[in-house]
């Protein structure tokens, strides 16, 4: 069935319009200008000329799929665009006051000092979706073409060289047939393709495997964050106030942590992150978040408030030793596709910006030389190692491994040693305990009860929102007339999974997409039902399904959450 597809050529194709992708595009334009001016002056060398740069973004608008805490270290944006504040970048507040609590189930205590990695003086509370919505048009103004509503669905290769990306088809009916408005995706061909998809990119995942980019690296570990933005009574929580907590509702085998950030207009960002190497098959990040929110100390802070926005997102927390090889023939990985995230500092936006800049500089070099093979593109990795970003991530290289041993103990011993030795710690590299997200205990192993089913909290539709109500305030919408974009590999496995684990997808999905529903009362037969239109694109299912039986693929372009202040 040879289908005629249009193709379009650009110099550089960037997949994903988040901080790393936009930084790549913006810096390419700046660096190309500077490069050509320098050549002009010197009279020798090769100009790169006006570069054609395309960014494809699966969201309907730039920023609509951006979700983060977020506290931003300005070091990245300062380098990318030194006058970002003067140009009106939306910030919620500079960090003004910060506290760290350790929580027990009923109480807790404030740490007398904020641990160094969590010290945020000089940083900014931002809404990442607002920030990116601001940055997008600026990048477009530089002559970059940003195509929203166009996910990449396939990497195009010539042998092992990446030559471009195919965009998703539109107008496919639920049964897979073409609707009257069927619009085939096109082949975007590029000299260099930059993958900036964020956590667990649907293109990067199979590509990393195919090209062996993870060979010799630690398994990438992940976490999932669940977040509500609260509206609280006037003056209750000042913009720029930060609280982080450890302890409750963390468990030894399910480490997590929280944040609570004061934003503008009496809004407060409240969230819970859990490491996805947890073993309890029925753990529910959304429920863990509810427990945190209902802790007396937190509840009191948010008293009189209500959740008004919701979001959830996985994050790639493996750190330095888990970062895949960043360059290959015809392409580069930036941002979270490349593992640019400092889990110790709970930050990644600054690293995303920096990775994009380093990628851009390398691309200019490659285009000048006319060599886009790994030979030249590997300079990106060298740049990274020499940069502050490389040093920062190297300094935290054993953090994830320490945490995987169990928090607070023995993790704290490793962490203290690492703090004292610039990241080296007791063993370097420290072996990771069990960051493999698939490692779940069976019901009988974990609960000693093959029918265990912990109760969910009581929802009241006001303070306590169930997943579906939360999805509603995430602004999520998908074209209903399309096949589910969450692909189950083998339906029989779901049956086995129900028996052994009671379908953890139903629990770990923060958007109530999956349900092993009773389809026959008499026979007690169950079947997997996928409410794909709830999906907030967090990618947890693709990571945490114990049988690796779920593949997250992009839905028809434009579908997904509509984050505005998340």
């Amino acid at each position, binding site marked *: 069935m040879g289908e005629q597809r*249009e193709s*379009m050529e650009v110099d550089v194709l960037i997949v994903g319009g988040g901080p790393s992708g936009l930084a790549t595009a913006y810096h390419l334009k700046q660096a190309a200008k500077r490069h050509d001016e320098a050549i002009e002056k010197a009279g020798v060398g090769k100009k790169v000329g006006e570069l054609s740069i395309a960014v494809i973004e699966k969201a*309907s*608008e730039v920023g*609509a799929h951006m979700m983060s805490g977020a506290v931003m270290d300005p070091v990245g944006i300062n380098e990318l665009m030194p006058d970002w504040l003067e140009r009106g970048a939306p910030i919620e507040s500079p960090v003004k006051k910060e506290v760290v609590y350790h929580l027990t189930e009923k109480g807790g205590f404030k740490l007398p000092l904020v641990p160094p990695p969590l010290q945020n003086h000089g940083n900014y509370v931002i809404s990442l979706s607002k920030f990116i919505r601001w940055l997008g048009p600026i990048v477009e103004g530089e002559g970059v*073409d940003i*195509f929203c509503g*166009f996910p990449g669905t396939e990497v195009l290769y010539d042998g092992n060289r990446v030559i471009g990306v195919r*965009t998703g088809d*539109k*107008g496919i009916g639920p049964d897979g047939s073409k*609707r*009257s*408005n069927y*619009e085939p995706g*096109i082949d*975007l061909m590029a000299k260099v393709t930059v993958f900036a998809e964020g956590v667990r990119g649907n293109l990067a995942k199979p590509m990393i495997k195919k090209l062996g980019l993870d060979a010799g690296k630690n398994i990438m570990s992940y976490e999932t964050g669940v977040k509500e933005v609260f509206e609280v009574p006037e003056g209750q929580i000042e913009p720029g106030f930060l609280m982080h907590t450890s302890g409750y509702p963390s468990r030894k085998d399910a480490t997590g942590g929280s944040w609570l950030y004061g934003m503008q207009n009496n809004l407060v960002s409240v969230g819970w992150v859990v490491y996805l190497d947890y073993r309890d098959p029925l753990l529910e990040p959304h429920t863990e978040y509810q427990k945190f929110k209902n802790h007396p100390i937190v509840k009191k802070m948010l008293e009189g408030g209500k959740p008004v926005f919701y979001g959830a997102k996985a994050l790639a927390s493996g750190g330095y030793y888990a970062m895949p090889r960043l360059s290959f023939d015809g392409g580069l990985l930036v941002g979270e596709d490349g593992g640019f995230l400092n889990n110790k500092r709970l930050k990644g936006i600054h690293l995303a910006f920096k990775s994009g800049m380093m990628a851009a500089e390398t691309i200019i070099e490659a285009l000048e030389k006319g060599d886009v093979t790994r030979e030249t593109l590997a300079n990106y990795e060298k740049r990274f190692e020499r940069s502050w970003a490389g040093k920062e991530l190297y300094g935290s290289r054993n953090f994830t491994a320490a945490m995987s041993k169990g928090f607070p103990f023995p993790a704290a011993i490793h962490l203290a040693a690492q703090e004292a030795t610039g990241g080296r710690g007791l063993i370097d590299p420290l072996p990771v305990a069990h960051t493999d997200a698939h490692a779940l205990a069976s019901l009988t192993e974990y609960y000693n009860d093959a029918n265990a089913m912990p109760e969910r909290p009581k929802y*009241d*539709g*006001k303070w306590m929102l169930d997943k579906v109500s939360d999805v509603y*305030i995430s*602004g999520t*919408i998908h074209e209903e007339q399309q096949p589910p974009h969450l692909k189950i590999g083998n339906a029989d496995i779901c049956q086995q999974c129900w028996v052994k684990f009671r379908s953890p997808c139903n629990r770990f999905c923060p958007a109530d997409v999956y349900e092993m529903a009773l389809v026959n009362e008499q026979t007690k037969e169950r079947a997997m039902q996928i409410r794909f239109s709830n999906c907030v694109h967090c990618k947890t299912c693709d990571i945490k399904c114990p049988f690796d039986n779920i593949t997250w693929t992009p839905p028809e*372009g434009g579908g997904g959450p*509509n984050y*505005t*202040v998340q």
Partner: protein
Amino acid sequence: MKIIVILKQVPDSETKIKVKGDGSGIETDGIKYVISPYDEYAVEEALKLKEKAGGDSTVTVVSAGPDRTVESIRTALAMGADAAVHVNDPALEGADSLGVARALAKAIQDNGFDIIFAGKQGIDQDNSQVPSAVAELLDIPQVNIIAKFEITEDKSKATVSRRIEGGEETIETSLPALFGCEKGLNEPRYASLPGIMKAKKKPVKTVDLAGLGLDAGEVGAAGSHVKILKWIPLPERQAGKILQGMETAEASKELVRLLREEAKVI
């Protein structure tokens, strides 16, 4: 054929509209704007007609609204429209349907037209007045809420269908005429990536009321016959009730009792 599409930019139907505290309007912060869905059917029908009519047929989008409207105009151009006229004048902010219709009608007249498609109504204020008023001002026939459209070979007449209670109404009209489009008329096409590239280079003519030879005091908000006094938010929906732990028969009884005694709807 000179095919015209009247297009309005509206908040996305998924947007949670928040009324300003003083009731003077809605909070525009964070609103995502899109082409009014019924106008998408109009764009599609215009493009289909262009493909059928062939020759030197063109589709021109005419839209009134502030600067941001250009984004929606570009989307229509990316779908395949050829050119656009954007009436952009701050005086139109808050103008009534008749004022907007006057501005659009003048812009259409200046451009020239053989046939006009519009959405049956804008999904923001649901007035459903502009299409009819434009037709009246241009002194041409109009049929609103069409679900089928056919044109004769010589392009002198069109036959359209309207869904009515219990059946379908078929209407024949001479051209030029204006048609208000209803859901089901067609399946609007997607803007393709190459289409978006091409749209960046297509002409969008921006005019203000003076440029159309209209008096802002008459056509704009100042001359409106209709004024919106106050916006009131809908009352918040109360949480639903789920009847649990009962047999079906018992639950049905309880449901009937609640509908009668609490909700007082039966």
